């Protein structure tokens, strides 16, 4: 506890104080919990439709997008008033999505229908439906916005989609149940987590070749419990964090050697991750313990856990 106080003070001293709102979707609670990234207190809770999972925010920080999976729609909320402003046509059972770096359009994985839906967030019109593999889930986009990647959980592929033509240009076979896709900020590498395979595939974005597979082993934890799901990379590419599901650990990985540096004990069934804009803190959603763990990125330590709603699933932090 003393450690957490110290590191927080250090953070506050090191950078200008800019509190950011942290939005957590609670899958079973059907609401969003809002935290303050500075005080780490819950500052609001608001309803968000049925089974909210994927959650993201516009680059200007004004619009919050939520996949209300059981409502077959994407709900859009004001990040100031927490009122719903409108909905977007998402296709059935939206689970995860990714926003184009420019803020438009939104690429949505429709888990029940084997398609990726592209939606214009300004006109609220559906631009395209792209057939992909069985149970589309993870969505990633290259930093230049040219390539959208979808992972299909039963087909076990990462589908590379040309964002201009909506055509699939490559399919990469990865291990069982790929959950999440994340590019490095230089766009050179793509990381894909495989929940049941227990691995992270490191893919060369240009050649679509798998160049490395990260594996995990935690003393005293059954191998079957190590299930990689959410993944985030620092913008300088030096550290990779992987949420390992029911093993209740987040792996901290060296960005060049791909060696695991440490396993950080967090809450139960850790699912998704989000950095603060300065990347000093990383928030994790822990679905079975109904809390969020806060990781001090520089120290590589868990500094606090905060109770949120029922079965927290996704998390996003507002930009500065």
């Amino acid at each position, binding site marked *: 506890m003393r450690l957490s106080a110290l590191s927080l003070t250090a953070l506050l001293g090191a950078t200008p104080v800019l509190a950011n709102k942290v939005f957590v979707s609670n899958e079973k609670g059907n609401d969003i919990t809002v935290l303050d990234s500075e005080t780490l207190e819950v500052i609001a809770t608001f309803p968000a439709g049925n089974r909210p999972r994927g959650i993201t925010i516009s680059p200007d920080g004004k619009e919050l997008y939520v996949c209300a999976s059981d409502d077959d729609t994407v709900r859009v909320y004001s990040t100031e008033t927490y009122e719903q402003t409108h909905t977007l046509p998402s296709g059935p059972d939206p689970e995860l999505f990714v926003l184009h770096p420019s803020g438009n359009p939104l690429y949505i994985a429709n888990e*029940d229908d084997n398609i990726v839906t592209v939606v214009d967030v300004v006109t609220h019109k559906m631009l395209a439906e792209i057939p992909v593999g069985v149970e589309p889930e993870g969505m990633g986009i290259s930093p230049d916005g040219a390539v959208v990647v979808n992972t299909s959980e039963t087909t076990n592929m990462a589908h590379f989609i040309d964002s201009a033509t909506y055509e699939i240009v490559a399919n990469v076979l990865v291990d069982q149940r790929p959950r999440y896709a994340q590019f490095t900020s230089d766009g050179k590498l793509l990381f894909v987590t495989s929940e049941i395979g227990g691995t992270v595939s490191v893919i060369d974005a240009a050649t679509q070749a798998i160049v490395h597979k990260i594996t995990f082993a935690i003393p005293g934890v059954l191998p*079957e419990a190590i299930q990689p799901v959410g993944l985030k990379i620092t913008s300088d590419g030096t550290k990779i964090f992987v949420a390992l599901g029911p093993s209740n650990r987040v792996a901290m990985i060296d960005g060049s050697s791909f060696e695991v540096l440490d396993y950080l004990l967090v809450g139960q069934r850790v699912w998704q991750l989000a950095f603060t804009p300065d990347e000093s803190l990383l928030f994790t959603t822990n679905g079975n313990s109904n809390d969020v763990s806060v990781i001090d990125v520089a120290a590589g330590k868990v500094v606090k856990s905060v109770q949120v709603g029922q079965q927290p699933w996704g998390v996003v932090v507002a930009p500065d």
Partner: protein
Amino acid sequence: MRMIHAISLMGILAAAPGWSDTVIRAAIVRVDVPGLPPISRLDLPTADLGFAGARLGTEDNQTTGRFTGQAFETAEYAAAPEAATQALDQALAGGAQFIVILADDATTLALVDQAGDRALILNAGARGDRLRGADCRANVVHVAPSHAMMADALAQFLVWKRWDEWFLIAGSHPQDRALADAFRTAATKFGASIVEERVFDDTGGARRTDTGHVQVQKQMPVFTQDAADHDVVIAADEAGVFSEYLPFQTWDARPVAGSAGLVPRTWHPALEAWGATQFQNRFEALAGRPMREEDYQAWLAVRIIGEAATRAQSSDFPVLRDHILSPQFEIAGFKGQKLTLRDWDHQLRQPILLATDALTVSVSPQHAYLHQTSQLDTLGRDRPETDCVMPE
């Protein structure tokens, strides 16, 4: 919808050079034994039982096949026991080399031997331990779990609960006796004791008449009266004759498990963990009813074919068969971990659900039971215990 598929297929074939564009043919043969309807009308068989699961599996394989230039077909045969041989002949004549079988132990074994090296049989129904032991064959993969796995799954949970004194009630049919044997073995394996055993003779009965419950309410307490002190009643009723009458009708206030009450199962339509929700949704959209165990097992059998085709990057039967039987093979089945094959008896390793009518109560293997190779091998016959001498 068709047009979209055709267009995308062309685009993808171009993007996946080198993979042959061929049809991988499978068949599902379901052998229906005529008999009385089940005790509960909720359990009435449907015309598409098992077939619906195979259809979803084939759709899933087709969707993936669009990216690999592979197409999948599964022909469906429902046959009476005397027509089973003919149905298999037709399936083989139609070019199917992967045959999913939903049948009882004896029929499954006969069909396995009939197929010989012409096909790989995926047993999606029969649970007999002899099929994995003395009667094991090289040309079959047991997707369905064995009685031993089911009994061990329940035993682990009950012993963890310290409900280790069992009152075993077995039916009078051969398949009931086989299941009772599995419960006896499980009790010894995990340290429970069977303090009393009784046989429920199938003499026909009221079953689903309008006054049936009146008879049951009088007969079952008497049948279970004066048993030795026990924690739980274990019903071995594979024939489905009496076990559903036991809960709340026993003489002593004891829970029922086994064939009724807390039941070991491969699937439950209320399962939501491990991404199962969307799988249930997809099945229900296709079939218009909840998924049953037969559907899950048939789906898994068909997915094994598709997974082999994707991973082995081939449509060639011997290549796919060898891949399925290799140590590299693994498949996801909405059970929270990868499922693999035991090389000593070709049994698919899998977690087993312990469920009431409404919900999953627990999932075995229980955490406390460890194993040097795979925790899943705490369920069923492990390598040192097997009776199987795998024919070459």
